């Protein structure tokens, strides 16, 4: 305890605040991560299906999606956060705190994750698609049974990368009133110059990132044959 109180003198009285910051970060990652996973997976699959040579080729739909993703990926996240304030307020009822951060986090993550999924599915050997077609599988069956199922390791890899980048984004959301560890580090570490608070937040973030990476690697190993 003495070592801890020497290294982190200003953390002694912030136990409850620190814990709630951790929980806020976790809940932001969980909620926006889950939503982004579902939406991004869907968009990525649609991109794969509708691209040239895809199982449901539709060049116009592909072009529209492709452009939208490029536009959203080009906007720096801090700017996206403020730009989305009116929408966030309309949808979530507030633009600050954990609730207010979720919508911008989803907008920031979905385009990135969609690209990750598109890239993961593009690695699939086209021969497998041909084999499924030759056995009479429909485009929808091919998307589920071949593209998604056979790409699980690649999808997990993309998900790991996205989750890590999402953890980074939640910290940034904290900077504009989003709560969580980012907010904690700025409020205490930066504005009150209690640098040890910044380090405490950093350690938790690192632990979080490493656990996500380790879990990802474990699943990839288990699903690769």
């Amino acid at each position, binding site marked *: 305890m003495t070592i801890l109180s020497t290294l982190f003198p200003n953390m002694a009285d912030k136990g409850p605040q620190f814990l709630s910051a951790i929980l806020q970060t976790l809940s932001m990652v969980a909620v926006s991560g889950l939503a982004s996973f579902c939406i991004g997976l869907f968009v990525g699959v649609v991109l794969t299906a509708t691209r040239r040579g895809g199982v449901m080729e539709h060049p116009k739909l592909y072009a529209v999606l492709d452009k939208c993703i490029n536009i959203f990926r080009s906007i720096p996240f801090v700017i996206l956060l403020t730009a989305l304030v009116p929408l966030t307020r309309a949808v979530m009822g507030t633009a600050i705190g954990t609730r207010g951060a979720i919508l911008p986090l989803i907008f920031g993550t979905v385009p990135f994750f969609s690209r990750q999924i598109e890239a993961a599915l593009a690695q699939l*050997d086209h*021969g*497998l698609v*041909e*084999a*499924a077609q030759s056995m009479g599988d429909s485009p929808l069956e091919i998307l589920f049974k*071949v593209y998604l*199922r*056979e790409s699980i390791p690649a999808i997990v890899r993309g998900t790991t990368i996205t989750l890590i980048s999402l953890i980074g984004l939640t910290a940034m959301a904290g900077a504009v009133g989003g709560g969580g560890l980012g907010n904690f580090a700025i409020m205490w570490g930066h504005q009150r110059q209690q640098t040890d608070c910044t380090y405490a937040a950093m350690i938790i973030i690192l632990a979080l990132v490493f656990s996500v990476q380790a879990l990802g690697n474990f699943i990839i190993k288990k699903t690769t*044959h």
Partner: protein
Amino acid sequence: MIRLENVSKTFHTESGAVAAVKNVTLHIHAGEIFGIIGLSGAGKSTLVRCINLLERPDSGTVTVDGRTLTGLDDKALRHARTSMGMIFQQFNLMPSRTVFHNIAWPLKKQKLPAEQIAARVRELLELVDLTDKENAYPSQLSGGQKQRVAIARAIASSPKVLLCDEATSALDPATTRSILALLKKINRALGLTIVIITHEMAVVKEICDRVAVMENGFIVEQGDVLDVFSAPQATVTKSFVDSTGNLSKLTELVEEQSPVVALKPGEVLARLKYLGRSADQALISRVSRQFDVDCNIIFGSMEVIRDATIGNLGLIFSGEPDNVRDAVKYLSENNVQIEVIDR
């Protein structure tokens, strides 16, 4: 069983249009093994994909087992495909599924009860001689084993047609033979019509009943394997035939003035080709005895194509000039194509 009428297919790529298949008409009978041979880029892979409409032809009609596939909508076409199996050069097994689940794939589509699927998979594993690999993943199998699994998967739903796209091209010669033997076995046992795409003469010779030779998107020659390869017409066919025998080597040796073909006075170098019935007779030894000439065989190849022999010989006759002339005449009167090589 399979009728292609005036089938054409052109691909539009960024570097321009590529006509892969040009106006091909092909009739494949039920129960036969039909080979389509050609060099790479001849359009044969596209042609075989036109049979199950993995590639939709730009024009022409495809009829399989009395059903005109080119007239079907997507759903009906998918159903029709379940009665056509296909195997590939790269096997295309699903890497995340075990051998069992790969083979069960087409069976699950038929919504059979699990026990029936399991029983059928085991029956197929026995047929392809892989009973101990049921729970292996494709990555744990050798190339030949993978192709056996692919064959089991392709015939699981008891199709009438099996399409083979360069099915043995990624395999070594011994494995190729075992896969061809398996194909022959299921052709006989199940009465399956098999279409084989290949660039290897050996494959066609080994198991095909009839063959079509393809070049630049056209079928340049087709017919009974023995007829096509004993009297090749098109240049590409001739080069395929030459690739198996070593008779072209004879011409090379003569041109190089090799000592192997050096002649003493009174000797005659000739190239002999004989097929079918004439190959059954002991013509060379008869000629030797009857006309008192010595026959020195410097080259020889015998091909057995579907119960008939095609023989090619490079031969040096020595003896009295009149006797040699009579011997040559006798041979040519007995269905042997004989060509005396002058230098």
